[in-house]
């Protein structure tokens, strides 16, 4: 009872305790979506249908769930495979290696800001709940540090396998990842120079006040993007597992659950890299690429690239604008989602029509299945639309405490903060998936680089461009901003 009372009277502190568990778990929820996106994306780019055979058998019906079941079947298959350890392997590191990428991949989300800092009234004073789990002034550095530790998973896995293919893959991967860490750090320095902080929340807030990082630092953005491809070992930089040359690369000798952990780590890194790109260069949880002209009672419109960032005014204009017009924003977001759901239902109806013309053994079952999907998604769309209308009509927000009395920012009631946080979380996830789609898209477009080309690109091209970009940024920032 005491605990329940404490929870109800301290909702923000409770949220602060729940979030450290929730955020890595939520990233695990996004992981199957990414795997599905990769499979379907690959299939659609290659004019194939993609995963469509695993199903749940029901009487007279087969639920395929758009190929989503493949994740479950993969999991079951890999979990029940024999946990084989090659007799020539170096046992301890062979077991240790797959855990390292997963561990670093699960730690990094704790450093990313998932929603804007929430101001709440704590007794007579004002406290804040930040969207990062680990609030430190060197958040980005810590992220890079964790990224550099994840290389050990590849190196130890390859070395302990005691196989030539593995060793070759591991050496390629480690050399490439070390090389591209240099250009990664240098390419992001330009943005840090403008923002003036290593704290990721500060960086996102700066973007909310001014504009997205990719418009301020287009060259830095491209360089960082390419470095991220290399850091994630994704095509065109996937020499670590060049299957045409060295079989499976560093995880040639791995099977079953340990292989699954390597794969999980890889996909987690894609997600984390996408989230990092979204945070640094696409505004993070900020909704719009440009700040919205604000109500008169707050600080007003901040012109592009002029003022120095003020950490004390911690809520950005965008977030404040969202909170002030929460009903309208939620209505628009739900409306867009409803339209997307309707489009999806139409696409399924097209599949159904196409299937009706084919002479297939399971035609009737397919038609029934697609019919159920169509009606379910149409119903969902209608409900979303009704919800959007209801939110637009009835959801009005009033701050509990106006700006200036307790804090420079207005303090909103808990449900407004919660809805905004959920909305911003979905914005981050949406941007992350957009960047993840970029990873997949590029993977099925470009051929693999040769190893010497990768090294040449990293050391001779990208490093130089990053340095020149940094120099020009420094000069321009000094000229415009006056320096700090």
């Amino acid at each position: 009872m005491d605990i329940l009372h404490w929870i109800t009277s301290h909702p923000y502190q409770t949220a602060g305790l729940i979030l450290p568990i929730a955020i890595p778990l939520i990233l695990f929820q996004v992981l199957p979506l990414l795997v599905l996106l990769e499979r379907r994306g690959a299939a659609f780019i290659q004019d194939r249908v993609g995963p469509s055979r695993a199903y749940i058998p029901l009487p007279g019906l087969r639920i395929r769930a758009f190929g989503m079941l493949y994740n479950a079947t993969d999991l079951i298959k890999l979990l029940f495979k024999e946990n084989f350890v090659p007799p020539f392997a170096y046992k301890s590191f062979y077991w240790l290696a797959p855990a390292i990428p997963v561990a670093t991949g699960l730690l990094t989300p704790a450093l990313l800001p998932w929603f804007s800092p929430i101001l709440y009234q704590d007794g007579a004073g004002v406290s804040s709940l930040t969207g990062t789990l680990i609030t430190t002034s060197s958040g980005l550095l810590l992220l890079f540090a964790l990224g550099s530790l994840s290389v050990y998973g590849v190196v130890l896995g390859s070395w302990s396998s005691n196989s030539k293919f593995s060793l070759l893959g591991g050496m390629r991967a480690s050399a490439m990842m070390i090389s591209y860490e240099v250009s990664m750090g240098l390419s992001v320095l330009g943005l840090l120079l403008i923002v003036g902080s290593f704290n990721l929340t500060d960086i996102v807030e700066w973007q909310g006040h001014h504009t997205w990082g990719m418009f301020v630092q287009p060259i830095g953005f491209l360089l960082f993007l390419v470095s991220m491809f290399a850091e994630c070992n994704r095509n065109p930089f996937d020499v670590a597992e060049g299957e045409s040359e060295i079989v499976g690369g560093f995880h040639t000798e791995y099977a079953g659950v340990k292989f699954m952990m390597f794969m999980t780590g890889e996909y987690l890194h894609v997600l984390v890299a996408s989230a990092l790109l979204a945070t640094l260069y696409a505004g993070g949880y900020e909704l719009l690429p440009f700040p919205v002209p604000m109500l008169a009672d707050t600080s007003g419109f901040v012109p592009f690239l002029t003022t120095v960032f003020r950490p004390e005014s911690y809520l950005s204009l965008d977030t404040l604008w969202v909170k002030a017009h929460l009903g309208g924003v939620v209505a628009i977001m739900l409306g867009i989602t409803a339209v997307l759901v309707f489009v999806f239902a139409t696409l399924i109806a097209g599949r159904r029509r196409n299937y009706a013309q084919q002479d297939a053994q399971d035609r009737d079952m397919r038609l029934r299945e697609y019919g159920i999907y169509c009606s379910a998604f149409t119903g969902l769309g209608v409900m979303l639309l009704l919800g959007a209308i209801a939110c637009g009509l009835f959801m009005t927000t009033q701050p509990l405490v106006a700006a200036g009395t307790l804090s420079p920012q207005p303090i909103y009631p808990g449900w407004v903060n919660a809805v905004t946080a959920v909305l911003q979380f979905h914005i981050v996830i949406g941007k992350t998936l957009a960047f993840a789609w970029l990873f997949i898209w590029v993977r099925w477009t470009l051929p693999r680089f040769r190893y010497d080309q990768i090294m040449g690109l990293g050391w001779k091209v990208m490093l130089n461009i990053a340095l020149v970009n940094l120099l020009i940024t420094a000069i321009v920032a000094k000229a415009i901003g006056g320096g700090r």
Partner: protein
Amino acid sequence: MFHSLDHLLGSAYFTLFALASLLCGGGLLLSKHPINGAIYLIGVMLSLSGIYALLGSPFLGVIQVLVYAGAIMMLVVFVIMVLNQARDHRVPRFDGFSIVGAIFPIALAAMVVKTLAFADASTIDPAAVRGEIAPVAATMFDLTPAGPGYYLLFELIGVLLLVAVVAAVMLAKRHLDSPAAPAAPAEGDHAQH
């Protein structure tokens, strides 16, 4: 609510990290294969970075992970991997000379402990500045004549690193006029003989 826990947790974490670093150090001493030693050393470094964060230098802790554990040790592991014949089986791990040699460090440690134990009881200054990025940068690039003048050292270190990189390239090249160092020197040797 949680601030009262901080004192307790601080010493608990310190004990944990200290024990971890000592255990990893012992593991380094007794490890058969240098790659084991490298992993133990990474353990030492990670524990020390935790201690740095506890002692109010989070920036130093992050740099320790980023540069020491992430870059330097990565380099060491990479070279061990490349040479791939580094297993310690030809030499006895401890011989008579080394046992005698071990007396000196033990004596040294004992002397340090004795000195510290009989020194005045010193405490951590509560006004000590927390080593976040901003104050560290302000001190490092303090250009005033009264400042500590670390910026000069900073530039010198930059030059030193450059020299080290050039020197490493020159050393790793087989002959000075050869186009590039082969990736795996051991195999190159076999090819030559």
